[in-house]
């Protein structure tokens, strides 16, 4: 069974803080993704990575960066958290074909 885990289920941070969200997958997938999920807006892709140290911007990369130093781990970084980054963050992984497998999500609140 594919397992995608995220470091925290709930996180509360203050405006201006640097925030790290971590994702780990155990299926040796080449590709990993970070989305944010907001009511009425669906899933929006922030960044994705197709190999170690390789990354590409998604639809809403502003205010975010990512890091992939190992194949199984993909980190999302909020350099300076803002209240409009309060959201549910979902990590996923996949091969080039077939579906994506999602983590449980991290609900981030920025106050």
């Amino acid at each position, binding site marked *: 069974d594919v397992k995608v885990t995220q470091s925290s289920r709930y996180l509360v941070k203050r405006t201006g803080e640097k925030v790290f969200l971590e994702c780990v997958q155990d299926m040796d*997938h*080449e*590709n990993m*993704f970070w989305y944010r999920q907001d009511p*009425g*807006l*669906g*899933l929006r*892709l922030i960044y*994705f990575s*197709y190999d170690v140290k390789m990354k*590409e911007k998604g639809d809403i990369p502003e205010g975010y960066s990512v890091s992939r130093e190992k194949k199984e781990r993909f980190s999302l970084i909020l350099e300076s958290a803002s209240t409009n980054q309060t959201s549910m963050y*979902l990590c*996923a992984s*996949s*091969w*080039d*074909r*077939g*579906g*994506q*497998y*999602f*983590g*449980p*999500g991290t609900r981030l609140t920025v106050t």
Partner: protein
Amino acid sequence: AQRVTQPEKLLSVFKGAPVELKCNYSYSGSPELFWYVQYSRQRLQLLLRHISRESIKGFTADLNKGETSFHLKKPFAQEEDSAMYYCAFRGGTSYGKLTFGQGTILTVHP
């Protein structure tokens, strides 16, 4: 541009009634299409994909290339089907990237 449209944000039916969640895509080639489901407090999970042509939890979806649609259907809805449903699409891009629709919240009333 590749796009997936789910025209209904909310859909309500009664238990035992048929249900159809609509999904349309814009792409001229051969797409890969998926339906994902998210039950309350659970992770997003793959429900079915067009290439496998299977029925999962009584749901089916047929790819209609002429109408560029991939509607999700179930003949008799159950209360446990209440969830958020996303249609997702891949149109020839590499790296496994998917484009998701905005989602439909299905509520099945007793």
